[in-house]
């Protein structure tokens, strides 16, 4: 029997859920609010919540001081490029592991995941040297490759889990129905896998977008994405909270909007394998 939910209980639940949601969202909210304050108001004690002189001044200054569009463009290319490249490599890999597993498939999957357990800084030095030798330092191509490699284990794992949910008998049925490999992939597998591929794409785009360690260490000017854009406002001249907040808001706005419109896919992606 389902548990009875009284209206009072529902009210409490809703209240708690909103409180938790607000708590998690608060840093972002505070950043956005701060971006509309003057530098003095930003460090005011006690902190000002809603009642201050709203100003767009910070955005104007930030835009004057640095070329936001260039950073944005770099972010789009690096996040988009690494995600697409990763998917192209991961789809056949996950496909073969899910549908034609060998005795070592599980080991390979675990080994791939184990690379994520290594602190990134552990391989910074060798990769930095490689980048110097290959002339990839501060290049978008180099970052696309590195971020793709960093996220590849997760992409493969996610796709593998999605593909595993597609029953093998359905593919066999297609084969019996006269479908050749190309038709089997086109008419049966792909339509069934699209939700999985979509949420993998989304999640990895976000991961790559927010990746700061490699983008900060391997870029200087030309290939610097939005993460570097934010970092440039915590500069040696001192902290400018309002401007830093404005820069942060501008950096997260695109991904926030993307996330808002794809909530359903994202939730599915984040809880993959948990719900059938």
């Amino acid at each position, binding site marked *: 029997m389902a548990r009875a939910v009284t209206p009072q209980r529902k009210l409490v639940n809703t209240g708690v859920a909103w409180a938790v949601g607000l708590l998690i969202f608060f840093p972002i909210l505070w950043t956005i609010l701060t971006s509309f304050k003057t530098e003095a108001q930003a460090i005011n004690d006690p902190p000002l919540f809603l009642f201050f002189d709203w100003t767009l001044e910070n955005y104007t200054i930030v835009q004057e001081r640095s070329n936001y569009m260039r950073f944005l463009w770099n972010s789009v290319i690096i996040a988009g490029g690494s995600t697409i490249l990763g998917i192209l490599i991961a789809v056949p890999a996950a496909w073969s592991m899910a549908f034609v597993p060998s005795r070592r498939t599980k080991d390979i999957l675990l080994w791939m995941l184990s690379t994520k357990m290594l602190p990134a800084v552990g391989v910074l030095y060798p990769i930095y040297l490689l980048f110097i030798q290959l002339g990839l330092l501060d290049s978008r191509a180099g970052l696309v490759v590195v971020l793709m490699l960093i996220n590849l284990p997760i992409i493969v794992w996610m796709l593998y889990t999605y593909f595993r949910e597609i*029953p093998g*008998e*359905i593919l*066999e*049925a*297609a*084969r*019996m*129905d*006269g*479908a*050749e490999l190309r*038709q089997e992939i086109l*008419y*049966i597998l792909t*339509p*069934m896998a699209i939700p999985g591929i979509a949420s993998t794409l989304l999640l990895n785009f976000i991961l790559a977008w927010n990746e700061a360690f490699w983008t900060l260490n391997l870029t200087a000017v030309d290939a610097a994405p939005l993460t570097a854009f934010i970092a440039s406002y915590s500069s040696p001249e001192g902290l400018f909270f309002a401007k830093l907040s404005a820069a942060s808001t501008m950096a997260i706005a695109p991904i926030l909007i993307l996330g808002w419109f794809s909530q359903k896919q994202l939730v599915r992606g984040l809880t993959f394998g948990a719900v059938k």
Partner: protein
Amino acid sequence: MGRIQLKDVTKSFGDVEVIPPLNLTIEDGEFTVFVGPSGCGKSTLLRLIAGLEDITSGAIEIDGADATDVPPAKRGLAMVFQSYALYPHMSVRKNIAFPLRMAKMDQAEIDRRVDGAASVLNLTDYLDRRPGQLSGGQRQRVAIGRAIVREPAAFLFDEPLSNLDAALRVGMRLEISELHKRLATTMIYVTHDQVEAMTMADKIVVLRAGNIEQVGSPLELYKAPRNTFVAGFIGSPKMNLIEGAEAAKHDAHTIGIRPEHITVSATEGVWSGRVGVAEHLGSDTFFHVHDTGLAETITVRADGEVGFNHGDRIHLTPRSDVIHKFDAAGLRIT
């Protein structure tokens, strides 16, 4: 046409041989049932015929042509899976039409055939639904519809009814038998349920550990099981197998007597024992009789009205003309 011949077919998974050399001919239009306990290789055998598994050695011929290396798509066989294996993202109409689309048939002919199959299978009202919106029995019908539109050389059924509830199973069993009578196409049907095998088959193939134990019509298998395995597997409840002194009286190592060939009495009989569990089915009653000195339990089928209770003394008389005799190797003595 759909005559299927297996010649010295073997199948191994790694070092494990699941099908030792096996020869079998399935005649055109025949309803053949592969039956056996789970793990006997019956599904593997069906998948070998379908082409979903490659055979390790030997040859498979369909209508006289070697099909050993022909991919499943080109063998002209249709298969119905245990899980139905419907395409969840397609409507019922598209599911049924899929094999025709793969065959690049023109749309008018596809529509004609899909509508035809739908009316035969009572699916006309459901053509625009997705598989997820159908009941188990309806899904099974869609799977059958997808198979019949192609007019294949043979149908392969892999335990198609085991996911249905008991009542539906009996109904679908009849429908598939009807379908076979109407289409007169070769059908190969895999099941572990000997009742399905007995009621549907023209020819039963009893398998154990990849070996064919016996091939024959349901009644041949019932009347003259070739060995003790077939004797125990075909017929419900199972045949009583008795060893020892009682068997020696008949010059056999083992004798078999079916529950329905034993008469019961409260007063006199050849054997006697104590009633254990009595299963009342209404029309019949099954008595499980202990302490007979013959075997641990002797099962007896009696009339529904016969009333013995747990612990009662019961006397049993086998019909002497239907006692099956087997030698020490378990083979029938004729």
